[in-house]
């Protein structure tokens, strides 16, 4: 199953994003971002298994800032989702 990672600027913002998604019925988990995906070192992300587009729309509607978005197919590598 594909995993999506939405990078967030802080742990607190990742928590707000995850809770907003959970309230809307999307399973979302706060995780530490893989070291290779962050440029400033030690970051947090929201991990999803599906519904990326609707999740991002929900974050935007709630004015929750987010950074780069990555996807990783099962057994594959992370690659950035162009938006």
């Amino acid at each position, binding site marked *: 199953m594909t995993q999506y990672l939405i990078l967030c600027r802080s*742990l607190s913002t990742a928590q707000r994003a995850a809770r907003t998604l959970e309230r809307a019925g999307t399973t979302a988990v706060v*995780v530490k971002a893989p070291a290779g995906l962050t440029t400033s070192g030690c970051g947090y992300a929201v991990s999803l298994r599906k519904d990326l587009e609707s999740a991002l729309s929900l974050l935007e509607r709630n004015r929750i800032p987010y950074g780069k978005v990555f996807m990783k197919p099962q057994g594959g590598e992370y690659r950035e989702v162009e938006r």
Partner: protein
Amino acid sequence: MIYLDNAATTLVKPSRVISAVQRAMQTMASPGRGAHRPAMLAAETLYDCRAEAAELFRVPEPEQVVFTMNATHALNLAIHSLAKPGMPVVTSGFEHNSVIRPLRSLGAELRVAGRRLFDPTDTLERFERLLPGAGLAVCTHVSNAFGYILPIDEISALCRSRGVPLIVDASQSAGTLPVDFGALGAAFIAMPGHKGLYGPQGTGLLLCAEPGRPLLQGGSGADSRLPLMPEHLPDRLEAGTHNVCGIAGLLEGLRYVREKRPSAILAHERGLLALAVQRLETLGLRVYAGEAQSGVLSFESPGTDCEELAGALAEEGLCLRAGLHCAPLAHESAGTLERGTLRMSFSAFTAPEEVRAACGRIEETLSRLGNRGRSREKE
């Protein structure tokens, strides 16, 4: 023991606060320091606490709620973010040293507005007169020494109309009076966790409309390659390991206050205040009471040293605070700077019987001290 020093620290806490502190100590590590369960459990608790405070104080986003060690820490963060050397800063005549000392230390030019106790009209008029040309206003919501409730809504409206940023010290109002961050439009609101929010000592909150300037630099658990603290809240102002156990307790304190309702707690404390005023006045004491007053009461016994009386009362198991209450400006305004006052302050857990018994002990102790004084005169 009768504890009536709640304006310093509420001693009796909801039992859930104590349980939460113990649970945190046994199960939680440091938020932002790992993805393992103990770290994430701590992170969830901190976020819950931010969200609870944001709800109670109507802060738009939980990230705008910053954890501090106490209100003094929060006020220092706010003042160092906005005040500059030589900047004219308007304060009320009832500020605590946690406002006055940082301003003086920065070399700000203090303009003191309103020194008449329990006179909101005078306070407001003085603010209006002194605000033009000021770069900042810092105002307490309630005097910690006298319980005087300042007209903070009107002061904030004045500041907004003059374009002067406002810092509010909500140390004595958070948990009892309405503190609406959005409506006040303040740049920062500072408060302790260990008074009217019933959290443990060593906790405080700073509600922020802007990122502010860090007092401490260090680890933030994220953005580690940045040479300076991150630009965004709350990380920008929260360097180092959090007081997770304290914050876990504060979360339960906030939940207790929301369930109990601040207006109900204030009504309870004002009922106790009226009872104390009535009893103390019958003892011939000088009591500082007015319409605009919360559950904090100053009084003095003419001719008796307030510290000596407080010491004698402590021996009788009555806990009051004597002296200047770290607020010499407030005492100067009230004309009590040279002698100080005794302060009685209540909480949601104070019972009327305790107030009656306290007044009884004051009467007995004064009588004993008076007798001792007369004996010394004879010698």
